[in-house]
């Protein structure tokens, strides 16, 4: 990272990020009470992603990390999305019958 920094500057930098994170936290908390139905989860997750982005980019210094480290971090995220998306192809297209469904069909005259 950037050479010798004064303590005041580095604390100020971390405080600024902290402030942004706190604002995002307040937003997501407020957003949870908005009556926006199905959009609540996407909103909450977008804000979470913004928070995570701040932590990753500045606190964890991914920008300064090497290319391999960046790819490694990216892979972690991609692999979770891979697991989610391919298992969702099953979950969203499954026609699930409740237990005992057949019995009552079979019982029909």
């Amino acid at each position, binding site marked *: 990272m950037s050479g010798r920094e004064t303590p005041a500057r580095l604390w100020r930098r971390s405080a600024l990020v902290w402030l942004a994170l706190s604002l995002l936290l307040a937003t997501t908390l407020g957003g949870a009470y908005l009556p926006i139905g199905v959009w609540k989860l996407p909103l909450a997750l977008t804000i979470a992603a913004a928070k995570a982005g701040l932590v990753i980019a500045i606190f964890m210094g991914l920008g300064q990390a090497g290319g391999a480290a960046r790819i490694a971090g990216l892979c972690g995220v991609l692999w979770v999305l891979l697991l989610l998306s391919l*298992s969702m192809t*099953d979950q969203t297209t499954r026609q699930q019958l409740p237990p005992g469904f057949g019995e009552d069909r079979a019982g029909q005259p």
Partner: protein
Amino acid sequence: MTDIAALPEPHPATPRPTRSYLGAGSDLRSWLLTTDHKRIAILYALTLTLFFFIGGAAATLIRIELITPAGDLVSADSYNKLFTLHGVIMVWFFLVPAIPTTFGNFILPMAVGASDVAFPRLNLLSWYLTVAGGLLALVSLLVGGVDTGWTFYTPYSTLYSNSYVTLAAAGVFVAGFGTIATGVNMIVTVHVLRARGMRWMRLPLFVWSIYATSIIMVLATPALAVALLMIVVDRLFGLSLFDPDQGGDPIIFQHVFWFYSHPAVYIMILPGMGVVTEIITCFARRRVFGYEAMVFAILGIAIFSFFVWGHHMFVSGQSAWASLVFSILSFVVAVPSAIKVFNWSATLYGGHITFEASMLYALGFLGLFTLGGLTGLFLASIPIDVHVHDTYFVVAHFHYIMVGAMVTAFFGGLHFWWPKVTGRHYSEPWARLAAILMFVGFNFTFFPQFILGYLGMPRRYHSYPPEFQIWHVLSSAGAVILALAYLVPLVYLTLSLRYGRRAGDNPWHASGLEWATTSPPPRDNFVIPPTVDTDPYAYHAAHEEPSERDESGGDHQSSRKDEMP
């Protein structure tokens, strides 16, 4: 052997170290607290050998039990515990760690020209984690066993099994972190510790295969860990994550479990592919055919292995659409494997082939892997899978890959690098005999199981209808040959430690950097850190085919070490 010795030495003599890694202390402490990757590899090898024979003993009992249709040797419960033990031990305490932690540990740092792995102490910790996990699994066996099968399917494993599931799952969980640590170590070693001039496209394919395997280890094993964790908390605290009465869905467990367990198959087979490439190039005296294609095939297999897990769930009640998606992806993943098989065959073209024991193993691998891979196509076809799923066809298929291919490659590597590890030669005739016995015994054991599976014999059956008996008897007979074949190397390899001829530094005149140092190597592998200025497998000049001139001691043999500083 003798005419090989007539060939020129690919690596010119280097200054000789004062003593080998074996000489750096001989008390227990110097082994149990070592951070030398070579000693840790030996610790792993001893541990895994023990587990291999425990798992093998279980397999033997299973095969004896199945000689008769009635379940008369052991009770149904004991039988279920036996095949669970066999699966758990063989998968997690032999096949997964087998090559990465032994040859990966021993050879990889040398093959990239490093003096050790990136994190030597983490390396030792991995071994302790593996041992601790193995001990937990063994304790679960001693106190009463586990009867869920190695797949731990819910809700049987969470709500119904009265056996020691928690203990065994905890063992696998702990060992899993050992695997992850090994993976991290290998990845960083390859990234950071390559010798000067060792560019990515100069890495031997064995290094590439361990690197790709490590990627899978790091990205897949945590999914297993979390699947097991969910079982354990379900059992311990009743979190009812997969309890159908509370709306729990056992299929979700299967998704998470197979997200690990399908790539895990490639954790087992990829290192074997790497080993075989080293052997075939060395004994054919040829550069590998299509190096780049081989690299991309390895990476392709590693990445695409994550896209196909749903083919284990065609009959589970997964949606038809998901099945179609997973089916086409499974067919596609066959392509890089096919490329590898063709490239190995093509590598033989125009070579000067000799048939040492390790080469016999490698050629055996080629045949068995081809058969195992082709039967994979059967399983990717949904209608066929529906019939043969959970039958002996599947058992035969994955044994062709994991035992036929992977264990054969392991033995191939063992014979190839034995002189490097110990500095001694083993008895070549006995080794060849064992290789042939293993090939014959293996096919004898597992080929009948393809037919059994087609006929409808379900797996994990303690007793079975009498019309299947003939095939079971054949299979069990083959297992006797196979068991003997596995015992033979134990004898002659042990004997070689004391009575074997001195092997010299590079008995096979192989090109890898690991052969550029003494056998056995010194603690820090190289007296002078090596530099690299040629492509791998420099058995002949880059664009030149070996011609008759080679016989007379070709002048264009590897010039790898010519410009040593």
